[in-house]
């Protein structure tokens, strides 16, 4: 698999981003901006599903109203994140925090596959019940935990320094911020 990572990193676009002056931090800032202005919408949805906030608004109004904003934010965030990863892919390969983050993202995908048909696709059903169903609270709690884990491990990627580089990846660990 390391060959695949090295190939990705060697692409001209990825090399340009890695060796650029201001473009790399702009991509990273845009990634973080999406976390800021769209990630909070995930929190709003989760808090409503848990019944901890926005209780005078229906679950359907919040889930349906924020759905497309969250999707747009996720697409931009993913594109920027993939560019950051691709530009230093070989170094990410050796970083345990990167793999923990990827594992958490796979769990986020599994969370979506399980709870989309049960919760998110039919929020009106949740409003029709006198008490918020356990499945909706579970979806909100797990979403909060998983996205927090994704965020923290994403940041910790920058703190990892490989002990000794046995292969030459063309990028020093100091550059991975």
């Amino acid at each position: 698999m390391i060959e695949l990572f090295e190939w990705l990193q060697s692409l001209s676009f990825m090399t340009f981003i890695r060796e650029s002056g201001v473009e790399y931090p702009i991509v990273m800032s845009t990634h973080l901006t999406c976390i800021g202005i769209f990630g909070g919408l995930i929190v709003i949805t989760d808090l409503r599903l848990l019944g901890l906030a926005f209780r005078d608004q229906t679950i359907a109004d919040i889930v349906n109203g924020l759905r497309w904003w969250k999707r747009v934010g996720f697409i931009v965030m993913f594109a920027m994140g993939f560019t950051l990863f691709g530009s230093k892919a070989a170094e990410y390969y050796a970083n345990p925090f990167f793999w923990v983050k990827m594992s958490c993202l796979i769990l986020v995908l599994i969370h979506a596959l399980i709870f989309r048909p049960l919760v998110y696709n039919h929020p009106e059903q949740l409003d029709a019940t006198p008490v918020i169903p356990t499945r909706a609270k579970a979806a909100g709690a797990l979403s909060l935990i998983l996205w927090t884990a994704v965020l923290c491990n994403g940041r910790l990627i920058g703190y990892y320094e490989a002990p000794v580089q046995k292969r030459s990846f063309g990028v020093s660990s100091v550059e991975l911020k």
Partner: protein
Amino acid sequence: MLLLQVDSIADALNSSDWIFATAECCHIAALAWSIGMTAAVDYKLLGFGIQRSTPSKVLRDTTPWTILGFAVVLLSGPILLLSDVRMYLHNPSFRFKMLALALAIVFNFTIHWKVADSDNVSKPVQVITAIVSLALWISVIFGGLFIAFA
């Protein structure tokens, strides 16, 4: 004397690899939390976001959570600052971030608050307020991240 005290605080903070990393994770998570809440109000001012609601309703619902997020951001931020005060104070991106942060906070609790809390404000004013608010918070994020690259 003050510099010696600052240095001793920095030494304590840098004595463990995890203090700065934990503070930064809290800083970024709380930033997403609080700016996301403010953004929800801005989306409503723009005419999108939470359905069948008003900007004032979204503002009142989000305010306690926004303040909670800001509190964590403003508590974790000084920990990051104190780890290397000299570097931060001489860093142009840090200065830009502090200026943008001051403007964002003042704007948020004055004009933004007043416009969002009144549902009788004209649409152009609501749109401009939302755009300025989003621009200020995005500036804070960009300024913060560029500190590492300045």
